[in-house]
């Protein structure tokens, strides 16, 4: 198999890992929305912590993307 073909396949496979981030963010927002529904006065605090948690979770998806881009464009 040529290197160029292997690169394309590798980049596609590397992005499969973003499923985990999708599930994680969905769970996070689920908990945050339920928290706001129970206690609307705390919505500022809950929202801040939710954004923080989303940034951490999304970072894992970004690692997958970085690996895919490295496979495609570097070397």
């Amino acid at each position, binding site marked *: 198999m040529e290197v160029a073909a292997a690169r394309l396949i590798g980049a596609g496979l590397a992005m499969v890992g973003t499923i985990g981030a999708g599930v994680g963010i969905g769970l996070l927002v689920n908990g945050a929305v339920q928290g706001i529904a129970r206690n609307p006065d*705390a919505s*500022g*605090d809950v929202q*801040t912590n939710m*954004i*923080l948690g989303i*940034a951490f979770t*999304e*970072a894992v998806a*970004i*690692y997958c*993307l*970085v690996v895919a*881009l*490295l496979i495609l*464009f*570097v070397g």
Partner: protein
Amino acid sequence: METPSRKWRYGVNRWIILGLVILNIVAVSYYSPVLPHIQLPAENVSETPLFGNFYLTNTLVATLIADVILILIAIAVRRAVRSGELIPRGIPGAIEAILELINNLTESTAGKWAKSIFPFFATITLLVLVVNWMELIPGVDSIGRLEHSEHGYPIEQVMPGVYTIVPTSGESAGEAHEGGYGLIPYLRVASTDLNFTVGLALIAVLMTQVMGVRSLGATYFTKFINVGGIFSRPAFGLLDFFVGILELISEFSKLLSFSFRLFGNIFAGSVLLFVIGTLIPVFVQSMFLGLEFFVGLIQAVVFGMLTMVFMAQATQGHGEHHEDEGAEGAHA
């Protein structure tokens, strides 16, 4: 007395947008956009180095321009503060709102070290914000100098001294003939350069350790090398030692995660803008510009907020976690 309220109507803006879309379609039929050569390291702005072996890269130029913008904003804010008016208007008012938000966040998390931690949070957030939003300005990443490359395209002269890239008819990107020209932009978003993000991450992690030492003294390092309990409580002492080693490893992973989170988000965003702009040249890229607006904002705030949270954790040490949880709960 009721002032007669005007019914809101669409007005003239929709005609302006329609006019711009038609202009876009006309322009695309003459010169359709081509996919630029995407590479990870930043490109050199000029062929000749400045001095010795040091080339000026386009991300360095963008960082310097962001610095100038921040200094101008600081001068404007200082003038508004000096004038003595209690409620500033315009840009100083917006900066006051942003800084008040950041200050409240810092005080609710950090407690008495908020005064030392706030400058880092605010500086990192404002710098990364200005740098990320430079991606939205037309001309960044698209105006530059041409040079020979093997992924080149033929060029055509539009005005004396100004050239534009013309894709040969009916061919896919990157397959062009040798001797064509490729574009090297004069400005490139600084967060897409690993030097910028790793540098900021190094500063954040290093100052976290400095904050820890400032607040706890040299006993801060027993967080990492925790040999106190090995002889007094054998089993748990050994476990504490391994937890300390794990903390050390997690400091290095913070370095990696800071730099790659910012880099990955913004680099992926700019690659997305390039590809979408090439595939559908009319209007669709504007929607992704809106997405990039929010991504840039959130990544700037998250970088700063995580720095602040890690510094606050470093000043708190081991056994005081639980009392501070109670204080924070009573706070809100």
